[in-house]
């Protein structure tokens, strides 16, 4: 900003260019500052920052035309860096407007005598250039050969980072997401069969460890087995389009049968990928809509799942110990806890009073107001205190039916609990328990936002939310066609127009063809606009000339003006000379006599004369 301001000042006051050494020093200082603030290494942030800083600093020494052109062209590159962060649909406007501004700057630079920045003709010219370039861009976008895999680096470096649900949960982390209406993922169910809302538990990170404040994951060494046998009644197939999260988790309905490609299914049924999800990602899943999941539990895991911070939350501990003694089995304790949540004065609130110290005790016995994370967290600790292995599951719950797909937003983030029920002589199983549903059943039925009585923020209007959701339909299409266009989609397109093979030769031919066609596309309108325009009179004259086109020498004289041509013509065809003379007189009178009226009549008359001449010549 300072640099730009300085440059303006310098231009106005004709300040001379600073010494090269000084400029060099400034550049080095800026570079060091960037490295100091961002760390060293090839990352997206550092590359982009350096590019932008250097472009701006270049302004300091931009005094010649050459430098100015350089800066403007670098601006194109700077424009592009925005897309490394996001490829949202609305950025098309950004793309077009900044392309327009930059191109116009280039055009103004190339107009030496232009006095204003906003010459209307020039703006029109730039706009028409861009408009003509668009069909070209679209065609090229579709057919330009794409790379299946990156040549260097991984998309991680330049992926679109974004925060979604993280793999830890501390107080307030889900409430933060609750404020965010941006899409988390979209789901297309096979055959369009959408399960009921209370089945839609989208499983994310499962949290094992609790340090008194924050929940965190367990690091797994093995993968979970696939589910081999199942009844097809509960089976559901769907495809997920996951927005970039910057995390390693994929979301799926409980419980996922099989891991998709390049993904591991961890023992706690989470889908984990090696590379972070930094771009839009598609995967297909098959799930069984169960709320219990049979799985053996090792002793080591059991001890982990029974762990809770000692010497804390003693009030809860006493309560749970008494429950334990009263209960016959684990299920009774679970049910009693749920009942307790249901019948005590608990409230669902997204603005709970802040907790500190012994958070479970405080929440259960004092504040009694909380969000899903509070309920899930306290419930799991309660269970552990009662000797039942339990863990917190985070993810999303529900979703908005948006026509052909289900939209799950960040605000649908949710946390629930899983308890492990051991049975005598039978395999133990995981049981999903959602304590929030006990407090606010509508949360599970219709989504978190619906049950809130107050607005989340000033701009939280119903129509705004609705328009956002309908906007997401376009965004979905955008993702399908633009953001996620890749080699395979391109191949499908080629196949659709009858090109099966994608070898080098046919590609090269195709590129040439496309180049040619697009050149024509942009050439024709220009040619059309720039063609010579003849008046009706001139057209008649040309018609007259064309009657003797078979004689090149005579025909060529028509360039010298009608008088000379008429004379030559009369000489060649004496039999038509009277008509020719008449044509000449009427033509000259109509063309050059300013007071002349009755254009239409004259043209009719001339046409008649012309046909007479033609008849005479052909004799």
């Amino acid at each position: 900003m300072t640099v730009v301001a300085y440059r303006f000042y310098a231009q106005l006051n004709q300040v001379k260019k600073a010494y090269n050494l000084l400029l060099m020093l400034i550049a080095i200082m800026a570079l060091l500052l960037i490295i100091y603030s961002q760390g060293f290494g090839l990352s997206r942030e550092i590359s982009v920052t350096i590019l932008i800083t250097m472009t701006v600093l270049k302004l300091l020494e931009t005094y010649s035309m050459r430098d100015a052109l350089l800066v403007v062209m670098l601006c194109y590159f700077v424009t592009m860096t925005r897309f490394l962060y996001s490829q949202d649909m609305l950025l098309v406007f950004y793309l077009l407007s900044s392309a327009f501004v930059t191109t116009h700057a280039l055009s103004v630079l190339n107009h030496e005598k232009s006095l204003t920045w906003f010459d209307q003709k020039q703006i029109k010219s730039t706009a028409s250039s861009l408009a003509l370039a668009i069909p070209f861009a679209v065609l090229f976008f579709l057919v330009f050969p794409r790379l299946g895999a990156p040549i260097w680096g991984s998309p991680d470096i330049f992926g679109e980072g974004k925060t979604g649900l993280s793999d830890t949960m501390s107080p307030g982390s889900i409430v933060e997401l609750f404020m965010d209406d941006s899409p988390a993922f979209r789901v297309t169910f096979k055959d369009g069969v959408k399960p009921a809302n209370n089945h839609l538990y989208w499983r994310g990170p499962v949290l094992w460890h609790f340090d008194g404040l924050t929940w965190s994951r367990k690091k797994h060494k093995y993968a979970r087995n696939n589910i081999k046998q199942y009844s097809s009644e509960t089976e559901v197939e769907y495809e997920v389009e996951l927005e970039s999260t910057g995390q390693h988790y994929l979301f799926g309905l409980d419980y996922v049968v099989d891991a998709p490609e390049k993904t591991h299914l961890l023992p706690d049924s989470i889908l984990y990928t090696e590379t972070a999800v930094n771009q839009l990602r598609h995967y297909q899943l098959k799930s069984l809509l169960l709320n219990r999941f049979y799985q053996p539990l090792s002793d080591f895991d059991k001890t982990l799942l029974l762990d809770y911070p000692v010497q804390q939350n003693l009030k809860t501990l006493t309560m749970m110990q008494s429950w334990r003694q009263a209960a016959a089995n684990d299920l009774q304790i679970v049910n009693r806890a749920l009942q307790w949540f249901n019948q005590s004065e608990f409230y669902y609130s997204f603005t709970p009073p802040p907790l500190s110290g012994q958070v479970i005790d405080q929440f259960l016995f004092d504040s009694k107001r909380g969000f899903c994370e509070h309920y899930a967290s306290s419930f799991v600790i309660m269970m552990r205190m009662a000797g039942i292995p339990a863990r917190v599951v985070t993810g999303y719950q529900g979703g908005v039916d948006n026509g052909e797909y289900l939209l799950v937003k960040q605000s649908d983030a949710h946390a629930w609990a899983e308890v492990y029920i051991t049975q005598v002589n039978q395999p133990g199983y995981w049981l999903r328990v959602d304590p929030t549903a006990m407090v606010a059943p509508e949360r599970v039925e219709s989504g978190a936002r619906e049950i809130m009585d107050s607005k989340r923020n000033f701009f939280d209007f119903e129509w705004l939310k609705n328009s956002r959701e309908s906007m997401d339909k376009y965004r979905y299409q955008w993702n399908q066609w633009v953001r996620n266009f890749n080699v395979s989609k391109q191949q499908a397109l080629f196949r659709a127009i009858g090109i099966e093979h994608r070898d080098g030769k046919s590609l090269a031919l195709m590129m040439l063809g496309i180049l040619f066609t697009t050149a024509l596309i942009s050439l024709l309108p220009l040619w059309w606009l720039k063609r010579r325009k003849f008046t009706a009179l001139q057209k008649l004259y040309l018609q007259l000339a064309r009657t003797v086109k078979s004689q090149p020498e005579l025909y060529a004289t028509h360039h010298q003006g009608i008088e000379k041509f008429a004379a030559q013509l009369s000489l060649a065809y004496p039999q038509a000379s009277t008509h020719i003379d008449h044509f000449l007189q009427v033509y000259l009178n109509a063309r050059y006599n300013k007071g002349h009226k009755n254009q239409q009549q004259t043209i009719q008359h001339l046409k008649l004369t012309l046909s007479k001449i033609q008849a005479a010549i052909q004799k």
Partner: protein
Amino acid sequence: MIRSLFKRKLNQFLNRRGRETLPVVFGWRRIYVLPSKAGLFFALIWFLMMLAGLNFNNNMSLMLVFLLFGLAQVALHKTFFNLRQLRLEQINAEPVMLGEDITLHLQLAADAVKWQIRSENQFSTDVCDIDQQLSELKLLMPSLQRGMQAVDRIKLLTRYPLGLFTVWVYCLPQAAVLVYPKPESPCPDFPTHGGSEGEQSVRIKGEELSGIRTYRQGDPIRDIAWKKTAQSSNQTWVKEFNQTQGKHLLFDYTQLSMNGVEAKLSRMTAWVLAAEQQQIEYQIILPGFDSGMATGERHKHHCLKALALFQSTESPTSIRDTTGGATSPG
């Protein structure tokens, strides 16, 4: 050698149309197109952008990249159409003295609006927009020889709108500029051999002493300032007299005793200019030419033209002389 051969062949190719009579309309067949330096830099940046976009399969970036490619193509066409159907109507130039730069005034016209048409050679460049009526571009050309000097090959170019491409035409017009002989400097005294009364040896001079200067060959002995000459060590001084108006001068080529045609012409040119400046009537006589006794702008050009074309072998058709016919004061 290959280089000079190549250069010759290239020149032959570029001048293949020979000298053309004006007006010349530049159709598409004679337009040359190449990317400019800025265009090459643009290509480099574009290529980097494309690599980045392809590598990370970033479709929005690729969209921008292809939009820019389309833009470049449209710019190419626009630049081309900007020059197409340009007319070089005529070339005007004022005669110059040998050694001075010739300023060509290129009169351009077109049916449609043309932006930023530029004339360019190694000596000068000029730019103008053409909007329905005649527009003028200036172009400098060095004068090389006395007489009618043919106009060099003219290059008209445009880079508008984006400067990514240079589109240009060459034209070798059927036109020549009159170059007068170089006037001798400093201007020598008027000759003693001429005068209205035909006095052969009487020096035309004023009555009043105007100053003293060093001796030049041909000064009459009676004008020598003996006193001053005796005082100085090795200089001979001559008294100079004011010339009063109303006198007549005769500059006769055959009476000049110097060696070389050019030196004689050069001296006569200087005299003509000096006489014209002092508003004295004068007459020049060349073998086969007699200007008659007169003064004024028109007479001056008449004389100078005769001097310029004296014994010059070629006499191509002259281009329109902007001052021809007009008698402007001074």
